């Protein structure tokens, strides 16, 4: 009798917890979707780097922090998705530099873009992230050694990093991060839809659904 009471109470409590979590998650995804829909202009800006075909009908918007470990792990996976459908998917990168001094690295890759080496430098830095991120903070002096031998004009790069357009680009992205209520990275939107739950599988599913809808 007592055991039954105990087990019943435990099961009810756990069910309430799981049910509450599922309900909360659904509500939150719905709200994020509505927020993205109501603020479409905040999702993609003209200055945002784009990878992939301009005519692609499936658009992944990724809010990325170059110093975020999970972003580094997701980057090759997203690129695999693009490689599987080069004509159909494109990637738009936005910045959410939440880590300490992360905006420094954002300015750096944007300055590299002025020399036509945006993706190359971004990928080189992501690959070496372990070295220049220590305890979740960017160590500025450790970044530069990973740029050697990549054909960059480093003096020019340093100059461009301080330019006004890069500063306003970062400010705009941070403003959009706040508008869209993004507080974790990476955050993905596929054709304006947020991930129902975080993970590679949900992202893959969302992309596959979009592909099926746009290219039936």
């Amino acid at each position: 009798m007592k055991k039954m009471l105990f087990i019943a109470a435990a099961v009810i409590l756990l069910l309430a917890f799981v049910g509450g979590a599922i309900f909360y998650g659904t509500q939150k995804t719905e709200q994020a979707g509505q927020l993205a829909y109501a603020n479409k202009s905040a999702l993609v800006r003209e200055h945002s780097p784009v990878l992939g075909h301009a005519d692609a009908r499936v658009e992944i918007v990724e809010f990325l922090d170059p110093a975020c470990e999970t972003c580094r792990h997701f980057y090759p996976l997203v690129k695999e998705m693009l490689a599987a459908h080069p004509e159909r998917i494109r990637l738009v990168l936005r910045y959410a530099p939440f880590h300490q001094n992360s905006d420094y690295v954002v300015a750096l890759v944007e300055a590299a873009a002025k020399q036509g080496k945006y993706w190359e430098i971004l990928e080189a830095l992501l690959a070496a992230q372990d070295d220049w991120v220590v305890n979740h903070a960017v160590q500025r002096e450790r970044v530069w050694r990973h740029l050697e031998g990549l054909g960059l004009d480093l003096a020019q790069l340093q100059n461009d990093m301080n330019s006004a357009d890069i500063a306003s680009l970062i400010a705009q992205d941070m403003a959009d991060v706040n508008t869209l209520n993004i507080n974790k990275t990476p955050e993905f939107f596929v054709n304006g839809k947020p991930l129902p739950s975080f993970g590679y599988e949900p992202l893959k599913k969302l992309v596959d659904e979009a592909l099926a809808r746009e290219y039936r």
Partner: protein
Amino acid sequence: MNNFQASHDRGWLFVFVAWLVASVSTLGALFLGEVMGYTPCVLCWYQRICMFPLVLILAAGLFPFDRKVIRYALPLALTGWLLAVFHWAVASGIVPERATPCSQGVPCSVELISWFGFLTLPLLSVLAFSTIIALLVLTHFKASK
């Protein structure tokens, strides 16, 4: 014998209700932290350290019923109660935030929820620990030896 059984059952029920309070508090804290994504402040962590084990310790005291469970549970409950009272004092502004260990990171004085205008998380914590302590003390005096 009947008397013994009745007081024995009553003691079991007190500990069971205490376990319920601890379980609801634990799941509530986990919901705020893991599902809603709020980062617990330092004082919240210390209270969690006292509350979470109570779920297991009180459950262990139920099967078979051990009225001595108070000896293992009360130190945790009392420590948690003191921390909760301190946290509540910080959140209500009685103790200045600066004098507390949470001036860095997530401040302890932030109000996450406020039901009916006064029922905040630290106060809920005070109430939960108080209820558990009261039930444990009741168990000690009312359950047969």
